[in-house]
């Protein structure tokens, strides 16, 4: 490395002042790579998010580089594992911004880790594409912050629209104690009125709870409940579903997009039959009609991911795919990595078709998805089927 540095210095005398810092990380022959930073929850309680996200980023950056990179420059991924801890996420974001000097950040995996990074990227004026769900990330709109997944509010709206179609208006909520769960509960309470839905019961359970029969018994004892909605994430919803069956509750049960994975059916087993939930197209790539605009994208991603990692694709990895592709697309349109131009290019993304849906960003909408991005699914015979959309 020292030799290379010397060569560089002798060639570019004018650049002496800062060449030391640069030549430490860059091979002299290549053009400087585009640095994509990421802080993901690869271990810890949100590992099921961060793990496929990291794998997805690694796989596609390798592919893009093999195909010659973006605007003639290679991509370089700098990824840190925050373990789902917001404090660590803040530290790693600082490191990405100050030491690694990344051009754009893709991450965090959770709403908590993302929100910890938001003030830092806003101050440093570096674009961030979050892979987390909650609506607070992009509402109010923050100049440098974007996100790829659907919001929990959209999930609530999709569910309530489906309930309205089935004439179910008295709904009981049961929610977990996690950030995702609480945020979704709040959003559902907010938009319920818009769909003529009355929330007649509102129960909760702890993050590591193993038995929700007490809460469900209370719901069972509440007259007039026509449907139950579980705002939850992780193992909780699977236990709720099993307990629901155990108690002999027969009203329709809705789960959130947070558990939209085969894992949920595996955990809840037979009890999952008949459960409805909103999910991204990726989950049902195989059964989407050929006419679906997203079909080619989601089928290709699913095939690539499953071939390389020999494990089922998850929507969370898809969020990382969208985050990376949105960034790459914006870099191309901005013609480089000037941060302000990159940000403007991200904001003017239109008609990008990703795993989450069709993305149309604007200065007021840093997510760019609408309700058509969600598909309403029902568990039948241990698999998913598409529910026929009811008129909005």
């Amino acid at each position: 490395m020292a030799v290379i540095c010397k060569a560089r210095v002798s060639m570019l005398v004018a650049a002496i002042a800062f060449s030391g810092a640069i030549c430490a990380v860059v091979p002299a022959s290549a053009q400087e790579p585009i640095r994509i930073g990421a802080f993901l929850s690869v271990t810890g309680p949100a590992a099921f998010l961060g793990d496929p996200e990291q794998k997805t980023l690694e796989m596609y950056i390798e592919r893009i580089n093999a195909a010659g990179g973006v605007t003639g420059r290679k991509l370089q991924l700098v990824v840190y594992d925050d373990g789902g801890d917001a404090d660590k996420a803040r530290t790693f974001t600082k490191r990405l911004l100050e030491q690694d000097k990344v051009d754009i950040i893709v991450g965090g995996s959770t709403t908590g880790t993302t929100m910890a990074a938001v003030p830092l990227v806003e101050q440093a004026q570096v674009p961030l594409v979050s892979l987390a769900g909650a609506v607070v990330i992009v509402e109010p709109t923050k100049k440098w912050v974007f996100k790829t997944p659907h919001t929990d509010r959209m999930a609530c709206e999709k569910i309530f629209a489906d309930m309205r179609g089935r004439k179910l208006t008295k709904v009981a909520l049961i929610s977990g104690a996690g950030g995702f769960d609480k945020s979704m509960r709040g959003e559902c309470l907010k938009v319920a009125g818009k769909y003529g839905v009355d929330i007649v019961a509102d129960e909760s359970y702890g993050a590591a709870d193993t038995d929700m029969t007490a809460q469900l018994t209370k719901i069972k004892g509440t007259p007039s409940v026509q449907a139950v909605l579980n705002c939850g994430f992780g193992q909780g919803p699977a236990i709720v579903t099993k307990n629901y069956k155990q108690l002999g509750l027969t009203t329709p049960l809705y789960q959130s997009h947070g558990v939209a994975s085969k894992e949920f059916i595996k955990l809840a087993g037979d009890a999952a039959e008949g459960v409805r939930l909103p999910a991204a197209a990726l989950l049902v790539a195989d059964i989407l009609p050929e006419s679906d605009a997203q079909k080619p994208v989601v089928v290709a991603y699913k095939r690539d991911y499953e071939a390389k990692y020999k494990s089922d694709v998850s929507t969370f990895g898809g969020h990382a795919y969208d985050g990376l592709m949105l960034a790459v697309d914006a870099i191309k349109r901005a013609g480089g990595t000037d941060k302000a131009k990159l940000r403007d290019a991200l904001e003017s993304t239109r008609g990008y078709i990703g795993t989450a849906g069709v993305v149309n960003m604007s200065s007021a909408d840093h997510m760019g998805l609408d309700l058509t991005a969600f598909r309403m699914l029902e568990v039948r015979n241990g698999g998913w089927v598409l529910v026929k959309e009811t008129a909005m």
Partner: protein
Amino acid sequence: MDSQWTQFLAGGLTAGSVYALVALGYSIIFNASRVINFAQGEFVMIGGMSAVSLVATGVPMPIAVAGAVVIASIVGLLLEKLAVERAPRADVVTLIIITIGASIFLRGLAQLVWDKAIHPLPPFSGDRPIAVLGATIVPQSLWVLGAMVVIVAALSWFFGRTLLGKAMLATSHNRLAAQLVGIDVAKVLFASFGLAAALGAIAGVLIAPITFTSYDVGVMLGLKGFAAAILGGLGSFAGAIVGGLVLGLLESLSAGYVSSAYKDVVAFLIMLVVLFFRPRGILGALQSVRV
């Protein structure tokens, strides 16, 4: 109202039985060494996870359960041999710190050996709910309750009738006197880790079909079991059972009648109250000094 009450009761007793089994593990090791083994929760995890992987390889359920208990016991014995025994002159606090380190190590190891996902275990005898007095319970709950009764009987036979059991009991009452009458207290400590690990593993296997299992399931169960042991009186076997059941019932009833948001708060609040006002727990022995 009545059927709600029985439902809360059923849920509380099931959870309480598991807490009781974990609490028993704490008490056995505490008696042999005055050490609180904070790796007890990890034994629960190892039991559940081992059973899941054995079942996945096609082993029939009873053998998988036995295998999981054996694996956890071996881990428990190794923990004693490789970590605790290596520090013969360490005081109790140091040993406790060793067990905390061991629990973090075991949790990390589990992430590598297995994975970070949540795994289900098929129930022992189907999952068709049974109606009892207006409440519905899954058959697995009966397994949990039944296993606890069997284990209590087996333990009272072990401590009352066998030489090793009596030696362990004698050591718990007076370590020096036990040593003077020729009891090998080192062997007692060794056996106590194996026994505690086996009990933890049984709890882990029994509860996995109801609550699933994962590499970090031991953290919360370990803490709840500890709270149960404190509540009942650390070192008392009857206390561990009573503490576990009371804790499970209080949690379930508070979730049902007060607010489910405070379920965990109740468990740890009880632990603090007991530590402040009755440190020996409900059934703990009075620490009297005889001259």
